[in-house]
């Protein structure tokens, strides 16, 4: 049967009446589809609900501490003492210590992790690359208590020696000076332990990114007279940077929140900020503070520790947001 355009349909087309638009996105119709759709939707929304709920209930318990100490003092002030009257719960040195250790740890870990990934992806013979991949992933799975014990029992004495050597050679630079001549339990050692923990995380993700790189682009760079070094620096690294930073963010989260490993290898100093003397035995870490104080904490201090959790939560969120923003800004081509 053929459908001829009648006068009226022709008229309709020439008129300004917009044709009825169909929505092309169909709703799930089969049962399996419906169930799957519902489960996925619920899971998706539950992540929002969970984050909000955690923050809300933490906030509820933490509020008394914020109220008694004042929000600004709680976050930026120094001193933590439950035996004085009034009690002092100021998080400043711990919070700064967390950021410092995470920053140094990431700075040490990133070049190392990228080198490992480059070796696995572009240099190592196939078999070695496979083994190395498994080893790196295994390293990422080591529980932090094990790393902490290793840090305490095995690594700290060695790293303290490194610290002493650094201080003797470069002590004229303020960050390497050490007035107390004790090199154990310093932010330097904590940063190294953190670096050991996050190298495999960053390496694992970076290797994945490298392995998915378009070989044609690398060949193109080679055909233009690129050397291994220049191809890596000018083509591979910029192309992979978005993914690498994703790995670094994940690692940063672990570094900021690391508790027990840092607790074992760092001397927590509540009263003073150790701004930059990374070889001296004095530092801070929010999560380790919670671990250190939680056992003996009574009501008010408990509230302060929960408040510390809230602050860590929010600071981690801010750090991640800033980092994501920088990544997006630095890669205009990704908007295409």
């Amino acid at each position, binding site marked *: 049967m053929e459908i001829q355009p009648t006068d009226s349909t022709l008229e309709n087309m020439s008129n300004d009446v917009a044709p009825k638009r169909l929505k092309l996105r169909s709703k799930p119709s089969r049962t399996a589809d419906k169930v799957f759709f519902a489960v996925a939707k619920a899971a998706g929304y539950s992540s929002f609900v969970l984050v909000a709920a955690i923050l809300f209930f933490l906030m509820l318990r933490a509020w008394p501490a914020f109220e008694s100490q004042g929000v600004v003092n709680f976050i930026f002030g120094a001193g933590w003492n439950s035996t004085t009257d009034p009690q002092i719960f100021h998080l400043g040195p711990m919070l700064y210590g967390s950021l410092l250790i995470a920053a140094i740890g990431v700075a040490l870990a990133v070049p190392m992790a990228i080198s490992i990934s480059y070796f696995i992806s572009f240099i190592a013979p196939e078999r070695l690359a496979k083994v190395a991949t498994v080893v790196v992933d295994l390293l990422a799975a080591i529980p932090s208590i094990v790393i902490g014990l290793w840090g305490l029992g095995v690594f700290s004495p060695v790293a303290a020696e490194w610290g002493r050597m650094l201080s003797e050679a470069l002590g004229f630079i303020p960050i390497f000076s050490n007035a107390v001549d004790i090199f154990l339990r310093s932010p330097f050692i904590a940063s190294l332990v953190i670096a050991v923990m996050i190298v495999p995380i960053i390496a694992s993700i970076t290797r994945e990114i490298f392995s998915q790189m378009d070989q044609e682009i690398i060949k193109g760079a080679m055909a233009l007279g*690129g050397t291994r070094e220049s191809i890596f620096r000018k083509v591979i690294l910029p192309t992979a940077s978005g993914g690498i930073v994703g790995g670094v963010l994940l690692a940063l989260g672990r570094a900021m929140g690391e508790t027990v490993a840092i607790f074992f290898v760092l001397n927590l100093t509540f009263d003073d900020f150790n701004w930059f003397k990374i070889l001296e035995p004095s530092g801070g870490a929010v999560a380790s503070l919670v671990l250190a104080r939680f056992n003996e904490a009574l009501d008010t201090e408990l509230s302060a520790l929960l408040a510390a959790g809230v602050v860590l939560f929010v600071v981690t969120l801010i750090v991640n947001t800033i980092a994501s923003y920088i990544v997006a800004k630095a890669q205009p081509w990704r908007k295409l």
Partner: protein
Amino acid sequence: MSNLNHLETKDINVWFGERHVLRDVSLQFQNNHVTALIGPSGCGKSTFIRTLNRMHELIPSAGLSGQVLLNGEDIYAQAVDPVNVRINIGMVFQKPNPFPTMTIRENILSGLKLSGRKIEDGDGLVETSLQRASMWNEVKDRLSEPALSLSGGQQQRLCIARSLAMDPNVLLMDEPCSALDPGSTRRIEETILELKENMTIVIVTHNMQQAQRVADSTAFFLSENGNPGEVVEFDTTENVFMRPKDDRTNEYVNGRFG
């Protein structure tokens, strides 16, 4: 006479692991000529063109015997740095592969940066290179836009311009139009004919008409029954297509297999 064949190969054999893929390929590429390499898929023509700028380096199992002479010097000689070979012998690939993180301008200058050479007159070089690839007028106002904002055909011409910025003596093209529409293909063919005034061009193509339109000489590659690929016939394009000496060439160029 020595200037006439400044690129030639002598008895090139290539192996990938145990597999012998090319046997005794000896070809001469004349200055200011376009030479087309044709043949059915798997005949080794792409493998061959990559021996001309040492691109097999990335494949650990690849082995080679024979010589590739550029101005009389073997590019596989011990003392030769493959990077210098590739500076002299440019290459354009099947799929356009501009650097995604770079702008149009940065793509043009990327070869100089990658090979560690000084950029003296960047603007001038960008302009002449894009002009030689006949796309200057299209992109002159958008040099700082990402290379990926260009269409596929433009991206391929950008890749040609990028190679030209290195001022190579030889340009290798491995099926440069196979991913492009007819309009873009025609423009690239026109560019090839302009470029050959100043350089030697070797092009792999699956397209018989393209070979006839652009090439002065044509080499027909064939790999029969799992044997290594060989050159069956190498002659002027006219002879290969109009008066082939070998029956297999005749059958292939007339579309009876392939």
